[in-house]
């Protein structure tokens, strides 16, 4: 079943004028992207800075409005603009960002941080119990709820960020470079955690990354973006073994590997 259906997505950014009376130049962040995300799959979107991968994800999450095109989530149109209009989508999605030390509020306990989406979205039930379950899901003891971010290691912080992203039971988890700020041994643990969440919860996962290791070890399918367009997509193993587009080939050739 298709969870997300994006059609003809265009996103233009109007840039500042370069001449006093001249027109404002336009940067085309996305140039007509079609994308389907199937329920339960893990999809990786790869590409370099400025390729449009983060813009695409923002549109899928209803955090930004396309210049043209449509996004449907579970058949329902995503119409960004008002908080009320996208509340249902907030509830169906969770997001993990790159750097856990900047995405966690240093003044809030871990418990309050994780409970935040529950409060914001008016989720019923025992929040304390849900937070404890969220902590267990990411392999942390529920006693962590009383701690503050500075008392945690980088890996523990990223686990807390993931717990917050999944505590309200979303169907889609989006990660924007979720491993890149982590130490390599911690990366291996968080990577394993993502795999387990997918298996246990049937989560659909969309990862934005240029980390081919993460892609190879977690993703079922890969979408390659360049200059605002999808230049190649396919099953992970097949694409990594036989990349078709010159850009994908260049990306694979450039990735550092262990001898």
């Amino acid at each position: 079943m298709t969870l997300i259906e994006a059609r003809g997505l265009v996103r233009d950014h109007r840039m500042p004028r370069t001449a006093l009376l001249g027109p404002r130049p336009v940067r085309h962040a996305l140039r007509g992207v079609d994308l389907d995300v199937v329920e339960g799959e893990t999809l990786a979107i790869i590409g370099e800075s400025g390729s449009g991968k983060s813009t695409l994800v923002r549109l899928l999450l209803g955090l930004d409005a396309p210049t043209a095109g449509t996004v449907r989530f579970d058949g329902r149109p995503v119409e960004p603009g008002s908080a009320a209009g996208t509340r249902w989508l907030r509830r169906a999605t969770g997001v993990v960002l790159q750097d856990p030390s900047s995405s966690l509020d240093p003044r809030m306990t871990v418990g309050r941080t994780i409970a935040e989406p529950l409060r914001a979205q008016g989720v019923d039930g025992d929040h304390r119990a849900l937070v404890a379950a969220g902590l267990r899901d990411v392999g942390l003891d529920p006693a962590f709820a009383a701690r503050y971010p500075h008392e945690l290691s980088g890996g523990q912080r990223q686990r807390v960020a993931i717990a917050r992203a999944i505590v309200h039971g979303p169907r889609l988890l989006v990660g924007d470079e979720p491993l890149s700020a982590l130490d390599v041994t911690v990366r291996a643990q968080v990577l394993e955690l993502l795999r387990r969440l997918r298996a246990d919860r049937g989560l659909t996962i969309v990862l934005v990354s240029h980390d081919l290791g993460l892609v190879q070890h977690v993703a079922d399918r890969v979408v390659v973006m360049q200059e605002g367009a999808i230049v190649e997509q396919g099953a992970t193993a097949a694409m990594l073994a036989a990349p078709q587009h010159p850009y994908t080939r260049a990306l694979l050739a450039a990735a550092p590997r262990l001898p």
Partner: protein
Amino acid sequence: MTLDVTELTIRFGDRVVVDRLTFSVPDGARLGIVGESGSGKSLTTLAVLGLLPDRAEATGSVRLDGEELLGLPERRLARIRGRRIGAVFQDPLTSLDPLRTVGDQLAEPLRLHGLASRREARAEALRLAALVRLPEPEQAVRLYPHQLSGGQRQRVGIGAALAASPGLLLADEPTTALDVTIQAEVLDLFDRLVAETGASLVFVTHDLAVLARVCTDVLVLADGRAVETGSVERLLAAPQHLVTAALVAAARATSWTPAEGEA
């Protein structure tokens, strides 16, 4: 140029962050220092450069071609930095001056150390811009850092580090902020320039795959201590220490490996 670090200890108050660290970089060698955050790898490079924060106290010995650097007055260290030791850091946007042209910054070490007149510096800037393969060097030297891409800015950083032909090049996570294809180009540049200049290299990174691309030897740090050292090849194939084994296993589990039969 030879670097000998002996029993280097760095303290912040009571907290020991680098603990009796000893290693050598023979003339022309390429040593990679790898470790996780907080292992002390960046502080070690700062200690070699005499750039530790004031709160830090360093004891032991750091010798460059036999000359003790630790405890030298800043005035003497300033004559060594940029001239005998070149340094490249992670983020070229913060290490370059936004108000000065690329050409000025490429040649700065030469001017600073009185190795070139204003006119010679201009010619040297052009030579360095070409050396690090900035596109259209004549134009590039007139640009400001914000007009360059991240990869080009790091090329400027490398050019400036090599301007005075230092015998030792220190690089601390120089490609961590770059996209993967740009990273590959910058690593190739390192590889080529270190070979051409014959400089000794100390390359600090958290990424074993990156390290393996430019270094022949590796020093593994954990909690401020040296846990293992040896050739990159041997260490990857047969790590002796638990910390190294965990590091190599995690790197294998998270980095990508081409399918069998792929180049």
